[in-house]
């Protein structure tokens, strides 16, 4: 990541000569990593073929994603959990109905995942537990992207003293351990859903801002940004309309990474007792309350834990698949 911008450092995109200077357009032909031996193609496009080509490109990207096993596996699992979060209560038994006669029963045809210490159906609770996680994690991630994006844009665009101050503050925030800090704040402010979302979002903001800042620094030396300044465009315009649309890829990838962490953090917080309260079927909470039954009724803990793990892994698979397709 470039630190201080060296104004005299050669802009990597502008060495002289047709074949080095012309960025390889989308009809690029790859060579086997031969240094400097790239075909350096210019755009060779006949007119209408170009528009056709672009549509083909988008379809190709979509198809590439659909064909990527990593991406598809992750997507299917996430979609499954989203479906469950929305509709599980219509499909399964009730997750909160207590049945004193069926306490800690092993998995059976009546209860596929068995029952917990209050006679509740574990399957129903496991499926319903997706709801809280899928509310907290995406919202927290979006908040982090929003705040981190703004801070990163400002720091990366202005550089100089502004950048220094912001980045040092970010460094301080990054040094704080996420879980402990969240516990502290949640103890002070209360444990409502909204506060959990805000706290997680705020704690992920520094990492996001770093990624955004790096992407902005890469773009701000580009000539179209200089052209915008020569038009007298205000800074806010340049940041939002000129630079931002060109840094969406790293932001999307960062977002999916943060989503995975957010899922896990949300579950951890509820495990520790901060966040949802019983009788919520939230996975973290369930694992915490059923933990003592692990030796005799492992299913009460295993299924929620597996569900949590599957969601985290699925999100990571999506990130992986996206990253691969974007980098081609």
């Amino acid at each position, binding site marked *: 990541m470039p630190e201080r911008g060296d104004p005299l450092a050669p802009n990597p*995109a502008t060495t002289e000569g047709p074949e080095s200077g012309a960025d390889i357009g989308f009809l690029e032909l790859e060579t086997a990593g031969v240094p400097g031996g790239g075909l350096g193609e210019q755009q*060779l496009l006949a007119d209408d073929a170009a528009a056709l080509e672009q549509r083909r490109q988008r379809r190709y990207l979509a198809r590439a994603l659909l064909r990527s096993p990593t991406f598809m596996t992750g997507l299917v699992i996430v979609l499954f959990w989203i479906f469950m979060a929305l509709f599980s209560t219509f499909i399964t038994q009730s997750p909160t109905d207590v049945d004193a006669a069926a306490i800690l029963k092993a998995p059976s045809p009546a209860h596929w995942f068995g029952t917990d210490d209050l006679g509740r159906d574990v399957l129903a609770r496991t499926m319903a537990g997706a709801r809280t996680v899928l509310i907290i994690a995406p919202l927290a991630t979006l908040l982090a992207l929003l705040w981190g994006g703004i801070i990163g844009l400002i720091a990366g665009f202005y550089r100089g003293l502004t950048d220094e101050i912001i980045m040092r503050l970010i460094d301080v925030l990054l040094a704080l351990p996420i879980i402990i800090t969240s516990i502290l704040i949640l103890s002070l402010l209360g444990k409502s859903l909204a506060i959990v979302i805000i706290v997680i979002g705020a704690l992920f903001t520094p990492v996001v801002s770093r990624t955004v800042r790096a992407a902005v620094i890469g773009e701000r030396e580009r*000539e179209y940004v200089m052209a915008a300044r020569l038009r007298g*465009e205000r800074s806010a315009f340049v940041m939002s309309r000129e630079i931002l649309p060109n840094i969406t890829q790293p932001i999307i990838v960062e977002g999916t990474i943060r989503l995975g962490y957010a899922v896990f953090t949300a579950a951890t917080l509820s495990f520790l007792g901060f966040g949802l309260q019983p009788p919520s079927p939230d996975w973290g909470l369930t694992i915490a309350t059923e933990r003592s039954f692990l030796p005799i009724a492992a299913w009460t803990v295993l299924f929620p834990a597996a569900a949590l793990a599957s969601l985290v892994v699925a999100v990571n698979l999506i990130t992986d698949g996206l990253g691969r397709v974007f980098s081609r």
Partner: protein
Amino acid sequence: MSTAEQLGNGPDAAPAALEVRDLEVTFHRRGRDLPVLKGVTMRISPGEAYGLVGESGCGKTTLAMAAMRYLAANGTVDAGTVLVDGQDVSTLSEEALRKWRGGKVAMVYQDPATALSPAMRIGDQLAEVYHYHEGMAKAEALEHARESLRRVAIPDPDATLRRYPFELSGGQQQRVVIAMALSVNPKLLILDEPTTGLDATVEAEILDLVEELQGRINAAILLITHNLGLVRRLCSRVGVLYAGRLVEQGPARDVFTDPRHPYTMGLMRCVPRLGMNKTDAALQTIPGTLPALGEPLKGCVYSARCPMAKPVCTRREPDLFAWPSDEGQKGRAAAEAMPADPESYSPHHANPVGEGARHSRCYFTVDVPEMPAETPVLATSLEARGATEGDVLEIDDVVRTFKDGRKQLTAVADVSLNLRKGETFGLVGESGSGKTTLAKCVTGLLAPDSGTVAFEGGVLRPTAGKRSQDALRAIQMVFQNPDSTLNPAWTTRSILTRAVRKLAGAKSGSVRAKVDKLSADVRVEPRFLFQKPMELSGGQKQRVAIARAFAGDPTLVICDEPASALDVSVQASILNLLVELQTKEQASYVFISHDLAVVRYISDRIGVMYLAELIEVGSAEEVFNPPHHPYTEALLSSIPKLDFDTEQQRIALRGTMPSLSEPPSGCRFHTRCHRILGDICEEQEPPFQETPTGHTYKCHIPPDELLALQTAERPAAPVEA
């Protein structure tokens, strides 16, 4: 001709260094098959230097990769064979291939910085070659490495052996790469754009080196480049590639002085020769664009753009007919005799492998010299443009420094110059000379440390952000890199609309009309307005960038290497466009470039920068002819020229470009000057000498003496033919 003669052996004695027969290469990209090379047949004899020229995308690098069997995973050789030193490359095993690459075939790439491992010292990298290919022990290999550095004229071999690549300059890095390539006496040396990206003076030194080494080690050379002057300098034979086909081949001298293919003729016509100026004639351009990769073409690949195309050209692709005339008539005869059904035509098999023979893939090679040319659009003279009416820009003692770690470098040192209304001021200099920094100070992208920039009499605020909208409208800039000059996320129409709104202050009603007019002026068709920059060609992107700069009817446009990243034929059309707009809009230009012929063509006056200083200012003709600054003199002698009638006196500059953080005392150029007077040059900063015509240069040698010195060595051949 200063290249090595071919070995006396005939083609039967030793196997050809490189022999390609009917090569077809296809790339498979995102589900499509893109044929890149088709039916290419050529031969390089041992010890011969062969130049392969063509514009972007013609397939020349692919050919080299195929010769090394180094095509990317998605490239396949569909047909044909490649033989290097008699060995079919496709039959080599993995192990044999590794030995053979670097041993029999060596390659020098365009960017030396990425060809060397940044994590290993130079000595270790060089020794590795000897160790791997000749099984030497480390100490012995290191000794050989030292010797090879000496052979490529690296100043301090012992110290260099211990250095890392990033500690060397670009020119030195390229020398090391050449040393590595030649260390085990390959049969074939492939040079892929070896000097693009290097300064003109450094380029000349590298070419000297290659020339000298070639004479000594008998390697055949395949030089791949878009620069025809390089080929003229180094190669005895040349092949011209277009859209993956070999369209012309023959001895370099013959092909360049008497091209026999319309494409070659078109290329020769669109390159500005040293001495041409825009008031003499417009550059001839090649209409149309390169065919898209994978586009199926009927008949001759060039027919869509050929001014001489006849119906037969689109029916069946011509063979590579041989030339001279008695053979060439066969082409015409074949065209005339072609039956209505091309399938029943029996092909004429030319033999393109004979040395000294010429071949051209055209039915009408006989007619090429009379190929019709576009009607030139002449630029009006300076007076007609009102260029004597007073100064539009005054730069006064501008200084700009940067901090590099703890060091302070002065990028622009006390530069003063005036620009008159309607004129084009060319700014020339090598990398690091300060020309782009100066441009940024004028436009306000950078604020000078001291000094002022005045526009139409009024001093401008140092930063663009503080200038009035009117000042911004009046001074605009066209940038170098077509791929980053337009915002990739916007459509072309929105780019121009925004520019029109902000710069011309147009209200909603007239915006659309103005955008349409702008795109018509730069000849970008309306349908391209709805597309994103990614879908436009390099030339089209630059046109849009020019339209954007002219959105507010500017008075001054600064062009920073606007055509350097474009192919030669596209460059010509951009230059013509700039000249046309200047006449139409009465704008003044500051034209920055490292390409002297282009600057000479388009400029009325020229300024030369060296190491942050402006060392010479004068009219284009004055600066390019004696008496002129010794640096200018050396610069001019180092560019590889295309014309054969002037034998050039190469002036090799001593040493390397000093660092900007520690400029030499006295005259900044004294460390390399070939006309150094003595201690005075080191001790005293030279004054600005002035000739009666107003031409100034910074030197201790007065004009009459300099004129005598500079013309004495060149009695018969002036610089400008």
